[in-house]
């Protein structure tokens, strides 16, 4: 992801720029001690450790920030926030970076965006999550047969334990539709 076009995308979204500046302020007093990276259970899988992420944020290297997998791998286990000697809200900052990344709807996160969209539509419709229908809509949206294949194993097991309730889809106004719309209005 090249530096310049990231900057352009950000320039187009003042709300996201403000949110990124807020993250920068939250981690300003980081003393690079490495406690968060050392505590993170998923640090081993990340291409860029949290310590290096905060460094990139503070030195405005947005290219490195948004070309990394770090915030996608954050399990929100809050160990880093508990132990940070500077008391910084690190897990919150990671979540905010994730929001900015999704805000920019970069195609690198297309699959996750579709999953979350399917999830939210499901809630909008039924108020509560109906896994079978929600996963079905997600598989359709992804248009990639390998994805459903990877879930069939688990699906059958859950079916055997009759944990997937066979609701039939219903149409018509969503149970939380008015709430969702009003919230959408509220935000602008």
């Amino acid at each position, binding site marked *: 992801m090249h530096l310049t076009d990231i900057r352009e995308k950000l320039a187009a979204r003042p709300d996201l720029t403000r949110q990124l500046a807020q993250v920068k302020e939250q981690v300003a007093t980081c003393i690079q001690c490495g406690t968060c990276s050392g505590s993170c259970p998923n640090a081993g899988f990340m291409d860029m450790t949290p310590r290096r992420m905060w460094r990139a944020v503070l030195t405005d290297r947005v290219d490195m920030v948004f070309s990394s997998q770090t915030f996608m791998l954050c*399990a929100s286990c809050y160990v880093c926030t508990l132990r940070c000697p500077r008391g910084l809200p690190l897990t919150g900052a990671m979540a905010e970076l994730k929001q900015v990344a999704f805000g920019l709807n970069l195609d690198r996160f297309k699959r996750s965006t579709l999953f979350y969209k399917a999830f*939210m539509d499901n809630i909008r419709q039924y108020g509560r999550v109906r896994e079978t229908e929600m996963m079905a809509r997600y598989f359709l949206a992804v248009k990639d047969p390998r994805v459903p294949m990877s879930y069939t194993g688990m699906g059958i097991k859950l079916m055997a334990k009759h944990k997937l309730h066979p609701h039939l889809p219903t149409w018509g106004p969503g149970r939380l539709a008015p709430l969702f719309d*009003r919230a959408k209005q509220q935000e602008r």
Partner: protein
Amino acid sequence: MDYLYYPGCSLEGTAKEYDISCRALFEALEDRLTEIPDWTCCGATAAQCVDPFLSVVLPARNLALAEKTDTGLDVLVPCSACYLNLKKARQDLWENNALRAQVNQVLEEDGLAVNASVRVRHLLDVLTRDGAVDRVAQLSENRMKGLVIAPYYGCQCLRPYVEFDDPEQPRSMDALIRATGADVLAWDMGAVCCGASTATTKPQVGKELVGRILDQAKTAHAVVTVCPMCQMNLERFQSRSVPVVYLPQFLGLSLGMPAESLGCGMNLSDIRPVLSRVAP
């Protein structure tokens, strides 16, 4: 003591047995659980990424419903993720009046208003601090004698809100387990993350983290959990069969309740070795 009950979406689906065993256990302990009428999803991890404002409105709706019952009761939440979302919303709304005003404008659609005065408590918080230990001790008659149990807490019921136990070395389940006559495995993986949602998107994460946890639990007869996500991960990524049961299931069994009434058939992992060891 009575409580308002917020099961959460997974307790209707993939974690059905957690809901069943919760209700059965509290009934046996003579505490009444009244489900919050018309509760909806708390937004889980999805709302945050799609629409941050919505990730406050959804849990706020449920808080408003709980307050609407004006019973003054605490809200009991078995699922750690829902507990954290509701708790975070309750704290933000309590501290930020402007946000609360904005959220109430949206809740008007459903004729609701949130005051954020209700107390949100996790299942384990209630079981440890409201006298359940003594009652379990009387009723269980050491049925679980000889069993070694590994208490697994997960993350979000302990952190970041430190309410009822040590966030690094939790010990709160020990009293409950010992009350049933069983022994507690001395391990310190109780509060180590199982990979949560990242385990589903990146299986190798789940495999390694869960592997490391279960490896420590080799000498235990079963692992007891208090969160549907942890239960799912611990059962899915098992290299060899380790019985994993919910805490209410385990406590229910220790009170002599029949396995079916606790949804023991629905666990993904094979928990028969535990069931056979329970004295009549």
